[in-house]
């Protein structure tokens, strides 16, 4: 049995768990960045900029979930190739859409057809990360936008009274304080993000769901050394346990983080800590 669980195919399955963790590790900061940018835009003093920020938040959040994932990656992929095509092959005289086909010149392919396999894989992974980051960025923007407004107004006024510029007040007073207001929303978002990772499967990445389905399916002896019946239930049970453990650990870590961040803050939790210490 130990041999069965260590076939190279199973190694692919185990690596896929790494892929999921890697996706989370990259997507979380990336969407925070998108979210921060979106929130800053949304509260910008110049009206058109603030409309762009608010529009980004509203559009991404308004579109039903899976439908967005299903067509966004194709659209993104074709969009990138189209732009590169316009830049690289300006003398191309054939239409890009030939009937059903989407044809760009060979130099504009992203990645180039000749590039190594790992580049293709990384590119596919990259578009998936970008899709996740844009979608979750909109959610994060919404949370951060709310958190920035939750910072007590007198704090900013005090900062300005001390002669800080608008920018200084934002970076030195507002940003350090907003995290404690943003954390509940962001932790919720992190939980949602963990639970959205099986969607990688829809984006065409061969993730844990793909391998669980492939390996759990029944195998006949002609094509494998380890024939077995339909074991998909057990593979999916393993996935279920993985996700439950992961969300549980996240919950504990985030709770601790909340305690740490509340220290010295002008919130009920911060006040309670101060009293307990005193």
């Amino acid at each position, binding site marked *: 049995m130990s041999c069965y669980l260590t076939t*190279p*195919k199973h190694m692919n399955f185990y690596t896929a768990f790494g892929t999921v963790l890697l996706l989370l590790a990259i997507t979380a900061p990336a969407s925070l960045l998108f979210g921060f940018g979106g929130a800053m835009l949304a509260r910008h003093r110049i009206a058109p900029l603030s409309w762009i920020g608010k529009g980004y938040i509203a559009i991404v959040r308004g579109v039903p979930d899976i439908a967005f994932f299903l067509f966004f990656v194709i659209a993104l992929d074709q969009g990138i190739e189209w732009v590169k095509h316009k830049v690289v092959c300006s003398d191309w005289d054939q239409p890009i859409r030939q009937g059903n086909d989407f044809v760009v010149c060979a130099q504009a392919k992203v990645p180039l057809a000749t590039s190594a396999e790992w580049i293709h894989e990384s590119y596919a992974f990259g578009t998936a990360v970008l899709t996740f980051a844009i979608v979750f960025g909109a959610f994060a923007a919404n949370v951060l936008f709310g958190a920035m407004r939750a910072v007590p107004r007198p704090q900013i006024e005090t900062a300005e009274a001390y002669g800080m510029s608008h920018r200084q007040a934002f970076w030195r007073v507002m940003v350090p304080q907003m995290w404690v207001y943003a954390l509940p929303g962001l932790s919720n978002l992190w939980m949602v993000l963990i639970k959205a990772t099986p969607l990688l499967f829809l*984006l*065409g990445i061969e993730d844990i769901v793909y391998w669980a389905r*492939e390996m759990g399916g*029944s195998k006949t002896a*002609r*094509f494998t050394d380890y024939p077995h019946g339909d074991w998909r239930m057990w593979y999916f049970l393993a996935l279920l346990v993985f996700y439950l453990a992961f969300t549980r650990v996240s919950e504990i870590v985030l709770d601790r983080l909340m305690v740490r961040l509340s220290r010295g803050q002008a919130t009920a939790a911060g006040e309670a800590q101060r009293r307990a210490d005193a």
Partner: protein
Amino acid sequence: MKNLVLSTAILALSAGLATAQTVRMGTEGAYPPYNFINDAGEVDGFERELGDELCKRAELDCQWVTNDWDSIIPNLVSGNYDTIIAGMSITEDRAQVIDFTQGYTQPDPSGYLVMSADADVKGGVVAAQTGTIQAAFIAESGATLVEFATPDETVSALRSGEADAVLADDAYLQPIADENDDLMMLEQQEMIGGGVGMGLRQSDDELRAKFDAAIDSMKADGSLNALIAKWEIGPGF
């Protein structure tokens, strides 16, 4: 949707061929003996051997890519890989969207896999993979169609009593019937589809000509028949 795991570049025949055109071969990897993922996690099967040989003869540098069946045509059309070599039967409907090379198998009859010989394939429930010629066939016959995303799920559905029969290519079902005592093939077969060919974008005439020529040469020297016999795909040419 770029979908790739395992792919192997074929070694170039000689130093002079190092700059050969790279062709990405899209397959499903879940339809033995045509194509499947072996224990080593690589694409294997009749089409793997065939494709490698064709690429050698056409002096192309081939990489293998796997993609889900239900989005295999859209991803070809949008350029994520250059050919479909996935046990895809040549049909009118598909030919409107993509081009096919000549068939590299004889038209393979589709067979019914059943639990008992008296299963009702005319009025009962028949399982098939979504988007296959078999699914389209059942939708038009009198039977009740139930669709699944992968061929393996159709067989599970038969076992669990969800369906009375599975309709799929004979070559796929036969090994399953041979190895399982509780499953058998019906004598009745359906002649649907016109042989299996490689799918290419309609704008890729040059590449199609290369593969057609390579298939011709394999037909001529009998190596195609040898492969068909080895993987028990059906009658040879």
